[in-house]
């Protein structure tokens, strides 16, 4: 895959290129360039820190959409063993934009489900860019009910621009598919973790997102509407996307403050795509921590806690 560098990352990539250049010079001419390298490496680390520790919400949205970012199946393969994928909604077809199946996390059986993006054009045609049709949500619910029957926890990985806005989607009632998931997820007796690993695109994300806990990666976002969509509606101009991203309070830290997200999963400096193993390590540790906590709860307590979590979300005043 071609190199993909975001505008704000250019100072980093330029320094990285310079370091490579010095290494080449040193090798070709048998020169000692240790001093130059040391200086450049120091500068690189500082630049990375300056950039990545002060990301704007819009920059985080771009990192969340980074085409080299680990996707659902990458995480499943890195942190789980014995993954058995299951297919189909038993009504219409198998939607490859949502994957799911049994898997083990350190021996603990789970049902893992997630929206899945493609890495290249061919994959994206199959995965529909991670935008599920109704049958994706219906498959997801079917698998959650299988987990409920098996009495094993459910982990949902969320990484979608949104449910697919198309004629077929509407004809097969995408709204109903999501609505039914929202209602039925409240009735499951097993622990549910919703983990936003990239894009949390509105109702399409929430459709598999009714968890006892909602976790989000440091550079992921979760929003009621895309910044572009919000900018188009409120500013009548998509070039205001950065302002919209800030206004929507869609980043991990904002969502913790709004008491929607329960925990943030740290990412390697520069984003998950820069170090898959480190990213997966963070995901695994955080999931395991919350599963331990939830596993101690009875089925009734789990349902009650899930209801109460969502029941208290909102801000209003009561003038009586």
């Amino acid at each position, binding site marked *: 895959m071609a190199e993909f560098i975001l505008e704000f990352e250019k100072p980093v990539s330029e320094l990285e290129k310079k370091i490579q250049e010095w290494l080449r010079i040193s090798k070709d001419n048998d020169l000692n360039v240790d001093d130059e390298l040391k200086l450049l490496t120091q500068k690189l680390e500082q630049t990375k820190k300056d950039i990545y520790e002060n990301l704007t919400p819009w920059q985080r949205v771009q990192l969340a959409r980074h085409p080299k970012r680990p996707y659902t199946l990458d995480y499943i393969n890195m942190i789980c063993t014995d993954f058995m994928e299951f297919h189909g909604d038993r009504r219409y077809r198998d939607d490859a934009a949502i994957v799911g199946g049994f898997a083990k996390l350190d021996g603990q059986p789970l049902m893992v489900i997630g929206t899945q993006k493609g890495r290249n054009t061919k994959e994206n045609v199959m995965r529909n860019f991670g935008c599920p049709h109704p049958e994706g949500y219906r498959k997801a619910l079917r698998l959650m009910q299988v987990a409920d029957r098996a009495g094993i926890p459910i982990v949902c990985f969320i990484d979608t621009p949104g449910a697919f806005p198309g004629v077929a989607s509407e004809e097969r009632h995408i709204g109903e598919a*999501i609505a039914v998931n929202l209602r039925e997820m409240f009735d499951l007796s097993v622990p549910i973790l919703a983990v936003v690993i990239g894009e949390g695109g509105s109702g399409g994300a929430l459709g598999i997102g009714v968890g006892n806990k909602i976790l989000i990666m440091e550079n992921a976002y979760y929003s009621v509407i895309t910044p572009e969509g919000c900018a188009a509606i409120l500013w009548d101009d998509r070039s205001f996307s950065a302002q919209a991203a800030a206004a929507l309070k869609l980043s991990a830290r904002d969502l913790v403050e709004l008491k929607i997200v329960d925990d943030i999963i740290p990412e390697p400096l520069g984003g998950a795509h820069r170090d898959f193993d480190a990213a997966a390590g963070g995901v695994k540790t955080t999931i395991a921590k919350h599963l331990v906590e939830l596993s101690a709860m009875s089925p009734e307590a789990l349902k009650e806690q899930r209801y109460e979590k969502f029941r208290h979300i909102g801000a209003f005043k*009561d003038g009586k």
Partner: protein
Amino acid sequence: MALFGSGKARYSTLRPTKTGPNKNTLIPEGLWEKCKKCYGTVYTRQMEENLNVCPRCGYHKPITAQQRIALLSDSGSFQEVDAGLESVDKLKFEGVASYTEKLRANQKKTGMKDAVVCGTVTLNGIRYALAVMDFRFLGASMGSVVGEKITRITELATAEGLPLVIVTASGGARMYEGMLSLMQMAKTSGALKRHAKAGLPYITILTHPTYAGVTASFASLGDLTLAEPGAMIGFAGPRVIRDTAQAKLPEGFQTAEFLLEKGMIDRIVARKNLAHELALCLEYFTSGCKVQDGSK
């Protein structure tokens, strides 16, 4: 805003009319109105007597929550709950206009505190819980207040063993409340699960227009789903779908009639029959088994 390059052509367009000269005639304000669908001129009084349905073409004009409540209840039976709930600008939304200003303007325009009115009511003597959305208030978008009030009326219906009826109309989630508004979809659906588990009936009446976050939550969860003729109902807006598909949309796409054909709704009910049909549904749900043994 940039002086150049917004990309949008700025020229005036003329709406097609079937009645020739436009409304700038010497007709006193408020006596006549123009139907939005057939562009025909109709006496306002005639329109009102016809429940705000165009007598020429049958267009169902959106009505206010108060008008809807009057339509679906025994006179004087409505008892409002949670009337004091008001939205707040939790996100301190920094956009073109402040959310607080928007709220104030819409409150002034409608005389409502937010976009939904809830309460208990009787129809033909059958008591039920009712929530009615009013599109005039910020497009009846669902923020924390709408979500909270729908949840509370659902919980009240569950606690008191009442059937629940929600009349929907909405542009979707309220952007100004960000993720707080999205999460109302889950909150309301969770409350509906408890209502259903208590064995209680839930009827939705979808009116024009019902979209996005409301379609993808409580609007689609009725035991029975009724809709008004011609109502536009969907998840994604038609413009978004057209842009994605780069193709023409099917005839009548996302109308109530289209949804009936595709199996999404149970019945299309004209406004003049709505109270009667709702009363019948409630009667069927609440009368139980009354079969007499004829042999005795």
